[in-house]
């Protein structure tokens, strides 16, 4: 049994969109393949029958193109409405943040800058980690995504989050974790020979565990 964990507020929306696209495209794929094979069987070579040349301009033949074409366009409208709605929620709007973190990609590791107890980034108590991102469940985070060298892509599969990191730019995004746990963070943009092992972990913690981690880490971390 494959279990796909959904751990952000928008993970289910993205999964629904993927399912919608999968079903629509899948139905058309099966239908088209079915018709192709049926036609191959129906018009197979028979003794005494010569092959006809069809130029496809007659109405009763052209309808095999025009009707599916119109139906596909209708399906596209469903996909577009779903995609634009999800895109707006995930990428175009920025809900108010409870906290802000900085995510820095470099060949071949992720560095995370967490605010310390003051919940302010770029202050003396910031906590820097390599390969481990700590967040609190049910809190909305803004992330500032940066790259120190080449293109990377910050990917958290359980959030269904993927965002390119571009050298010279700081890209802001957001997420709200919905369940505690420890999950993978990946780079999903080829970034060199170590791309495949550019992994990290995200630790989604309850309020007490997260507070304890901040207390424990503040003293131990140096920028």
């Amino acid at each position, binding site marked *: *049994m*494959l*279990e*796909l*964990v*959904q751990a952000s507020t928008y*993970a*289910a929306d993205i*999964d629904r969109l993927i399912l919608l696209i999968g079903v629509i495209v899948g139905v058309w794929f099966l239908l088209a393949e079915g018709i192709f094979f049926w036609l191959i069987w129906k018009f197979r070579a028979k003794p005494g029958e010569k092959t006809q040349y069809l130029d496809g301009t007659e109405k009763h033949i052209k309808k095999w193109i025009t009707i599916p074409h119109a139906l596909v366009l209708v399906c596209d409208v469903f996909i577009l409405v779903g995609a634009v709605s999800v895109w707006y929620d995930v990428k175009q709007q920025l809900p108010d943040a409870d906290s802000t973190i900085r995510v*820095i990609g*470099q*060949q*071949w*590791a992720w*560095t995370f*800058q967490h605010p310390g107890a003051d919940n302010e980034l770029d202050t003396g108590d910031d906590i*820097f980690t*390599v*390969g481990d991102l700590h967040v609190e469940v049910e809190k909305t985070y803004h992330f500032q995504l940066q790259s*120190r*060298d080449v293109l990377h892509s910050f990917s958290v599969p359980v959030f269904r989050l993927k965002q390119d990191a571009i050298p010279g730019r700081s890209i802001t995004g957001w997420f709200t974790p*919905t*369940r505690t746990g420890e999950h993978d963070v990946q780079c999903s943009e080829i970034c060199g*020979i*170590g791309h495949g*092992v*550019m*992994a990290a972990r995200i630790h989604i913690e309850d309020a007490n565990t997260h507070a304890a981690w901040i207390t424990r880490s503040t003293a131990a971390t*140096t*920028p």
Partner: protein
Amino acid sequence: MMVRLPIFGKALLPLLMVATVACDATPPPVGMERGAELFETCAPCHGDAGVGKVDIAAPAIAGLPQWYVEDQLRGFQNEYRGDHADDLPGLRMRPMAVSLNREGDVESVAQYVASLEPVYPQSTLYGNAGAGASSYVVCVACHGEDGLGNKDLHAPPIVQLDDWYLLTQLRNFKSGARGARTDDVWGQTMRVNSLALTDEGMQDVIAYVQTLR
């Protein structure tokens, strides 16, 4: 929330298992052959002959002792090297070391690196070797008068290392980017000795080390 996909799961898992087994060719046994195979991953940065590439801060490693290469690879694997936000070359090296995950891989690649023709990289820094000689007195206890190192004290042969690499590491030790973790026993020793050095003093002592070749 959990999404269950029983049909996909049942259909895909056997295929994935077959694909995994098909791709999982048995590697050569521990030793030089396996080490040469693994070194193909190192070559893009360290060069085919292990002479390093200064442009990407990859030091020369050819001919370094097997025990030292093993030490460093285990340091990266155990995250007391290459685990600091400011150590960019270390961050690049760590995942490569972590990928040596078969039993004997570390030993094999270290044996191969040790077998390469040793190099003594050209100087790239300017320092006062005379002033550095007096600072080097502290280093002698571990690295030896000739800078050839001491296996028992996990002290590398610094005469073989790039001067820019030595400077980077001294800076890392001083800033705590290296040698600050309690499980990095030998790194902690080195860190203590780096604290008193100014940046100029570091370059001086490195200039002296270059004269020991």
